[in-house]
Each structure stands twice: as structure tokens, then as C-alpha cells.
């Protein structure tokens, strides 16, 4: 493997790590807003790193340009979608869980600090 491929592999593994962290966070976080916070790691860091890795593998080709366009699109729409979901939840009356509230009913158990 050339140096470029090693760098690309590093990017891909890091991106995969952030996607995994996002998934774990989605399951482990106590309420909707913190879960969305975890999920948005997937669509920003995960997308950025994986797409960069793929662009490095593809080199100076048309595929790279397309991947870059997809990267821009995802980076542009993902946070906006997160904002829309969070804002709608807030308007619908879902309150963020605060530390003094204790664990939510039905939610996973959170260890108190």
C-alpha cells in the first residue's frame, strides 16, 4: 500500500469510529436532545472523514468531484435537518432533561454524578 492509501485508510477508520460513537450515543444518551447531539457526530465528522478518505482513494477523477459534491450536500443538509428535528421537538413541548430532573421515565438508566 502506498502512503496515500494508508492516509485514506486512516481517514476511513476514523470516520467509521465517529459513526460508531454516534450510534452508541444514540442508544446510551438519556433524552432526545442529547441523542440528537450524538447523532449529529455521524453526519458531520463521520461524513467528512469517510468522504475525505474516499476522495483520496479515488484520486483526480470525476468520482472525486462527485464525492466532493455529495460531501458538500451532506454537510449542508445534515445539520439543517438536525436543527429542524430539534426545533420541532422543542415546539411540540418535549423538555430537555436536566441534571436535577433525574432519569426520565422509560428512558435508560443514567448514573448520577
Amino acid at each position, binding site marked *: 500500500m502506498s502512503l496515500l492509501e494508508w492516509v485514506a485508510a486512516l481517514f476511513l477508520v476514523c470516520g467509521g469510529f465517529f459513526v460508531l460513537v454516534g450510534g452508541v450515543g444514540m442508544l446510551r444518551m438519556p433524552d432526545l436532545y442529547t441523542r440528537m447531539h450524538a447523532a449529529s457526530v455521524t453526519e458531520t465528522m463521520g461524513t467528512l472523514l469517510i468522504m475525505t478518505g474516499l476522495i483520496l482513494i479515488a484520486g483526480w477523477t470525476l468520482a472525486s468531484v462527485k464525492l466532493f459534491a455529495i460531501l458538500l*450536500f451532506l454537510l*449542508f*443538509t445534515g445539520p*439543517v435537518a438536525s*436543527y*429542524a428535528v430539534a*426545533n420541532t421537538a422543542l415546539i411540540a413541548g418535549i423538555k430537555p432533561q436536566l441534571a436535577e430532573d433525574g432519569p426520565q421515565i422509560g428512558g435508560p438508566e443514567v448514573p448520577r454524578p
Partner: protein
Amino acid sequence: MITVLGLFTLTFLVIAALATVQSRNLFVASMWFCIFSLMMAANFLILDAADVALTEAAVGAGVSTVLFMGALSLTAEHEHVRERSGWLPALVLGLLFAVLFAASFEQPRLGDPLAPVHQHVAPFYLSETPRLIDIPNVVTAILASFRGYDTLGEVLVVFTAGIGVLSVLSFSPKKNQQLSGEGVAERVRGVQHHAILRVAGKLIIPLLMLFALVVQFHGEYSPGGGFSAGALFAAAVMLYGILEGADRSAKAMPQDWMLRLAALGAMLYIGVGIVCMMLGGNFLDYSVLSSKPVAGQQLGILLVEFGVGLTVSTVLIMIFNAIANRSTY
């Protein structure tokens, strides 16, 4: 590796289907259905059917979800559950499952070149497309030229569906029913109070329309064609309707003009066929359209695909406008 990915999408497909059926909240059910379509599109892509994947992603995951949302705003959110014994449907389903399961043993291996489906007409299409039509995307050649009759039928089905939805929704709404709740009462137009959504959406709309045009007119060289392009174009108009209010999207794309354009698209398709007959060929035999048969085929495919795209996009816009502009059912 691709097998693992295929197994993942197929498993998730089953999970999404079960969740769609199981969820009593119709909003949740339509979201699951959107995920189902997205998985289906990924699965088509794994099977190297890029054209179908594009159409499935645009229509199944995009447009139909918006239409479900629009229909849901007119009805109640929860499914009305009727308790009754389901032994007959269970029996029928069990039998069907048994038959399909037994038949699956007779199926050829996936991708087997000797399978009947690859031996019937597929070799003819693959070997004759470069000579007869000379376009790289064989799918477009089959769809628009070799199987032109089928596609004409599909276009007419889409047109008929649009007419049907319009006639179903043409009666005036009940005056005393206000099921859509606070949103209609407040007369909020679109999501105008969300500055971020509007700014982001307005940047996406022109790109989406441009991409629709690329898919429409580049369909001979890359995956795409009239159906997916029409859905993408309609999705752009729907995004405008969601952001700025359906009354504005209906004003930008008036219903009576959409109806005329939908009819024009279908007529363009049939008209190309009739012109072929007048020039001495068979119905939808594009070779006579130009002095060179190959150029005639390409011209015919371009015109026919444009007719398909016109009909599909206008019918989808028409249905969206009709549903979204009703305050009650």
C-alpha cells in the same frame, strides 16, 4: 463484502416492513416506509440496477413520504384498530409463504449467467444496442425503444392516477370538520417562521431542478431517465411548497396548466409513435425519424423520455398541490 452489505439491507428491509405494519401511529408508519424505500434503493444499487435505485430513492423515499405527510395532515394520526379473528388471512399468508419458500429452492443462483432471465432476450439487447441505437446506457434503450409499448402503458397509468387523485379530491371539503388542528387554524404558511430551513431549502431547490434536468437529458449515458427526473423535479416543487406554503406552489405551478402539460407529455409519447407510422415505420419504431436509423432512434428516445418526464413531474406536482391545499378532508 457486497454480500454482507446485501444481507444487511435485506434484513433491515424485513425489519422496516414489520415495523411499518406494526406501528399504529401513522406518522411513524410512514417514516418506517420511507426507511424501507431507502433500503430498497440501496439494495437495487447493490444489484447494479442504478436506474431503478435512483427512481426508488426519488419516488419511494422522497415524493411518496411527502404525499403521505400531506394526506396525514388531513386525517387522524392514529390507525383505527379493528379487533377480529385473523385466521383466514393468516392461513392465506402461511400458504403463500410455503409456496414461495418451496419455489425459492428452484431459483437459479443470484447472478448465474445461465439463468433463464439472462438467456431469454437480454443477450439480444446487450449485443444489438450498440449497433441499432448506439447509446451506452442499455437500460434506457430497452425502456424507451425496445419496450416502448410498456413504457407508454406506464406513462398512461401515471396520467390516469393523477386524474383519479384529482377527481377524488375535487369535491369540496366538509365545512364542519377541522381535523388538521392548530396549523390550519393559525393559517401558518409553510415553515416561514423557520429562517434556517427556508434559507437552506432555497439553496437546494435550484440544485435539485438542475440535477433533475441532468438526469432527464443525460439518461442515455448515465443512470436516469424520464421517471426519476420527473420525480426529482416534482420534489423540488414540493420542497418549495413545504417551505413557502402550498398555496404559493400552486400559484407557481397552476393546476390547470399542470393537467394540460401532463396530457401533453403523454400525447408527445403517442405523437412520436404516430409520426413514426406516418413516415412509413411501425408504431414507436424510431428508426424512420431521421435519414440515419441510429440517429432516428436517439431522437425518438430523447423525445419520448421528455414526454415521460413531463407527465411524471406534472402529475406528482398536481397531486401534491391538490392534497396540500385542502384544509380538511
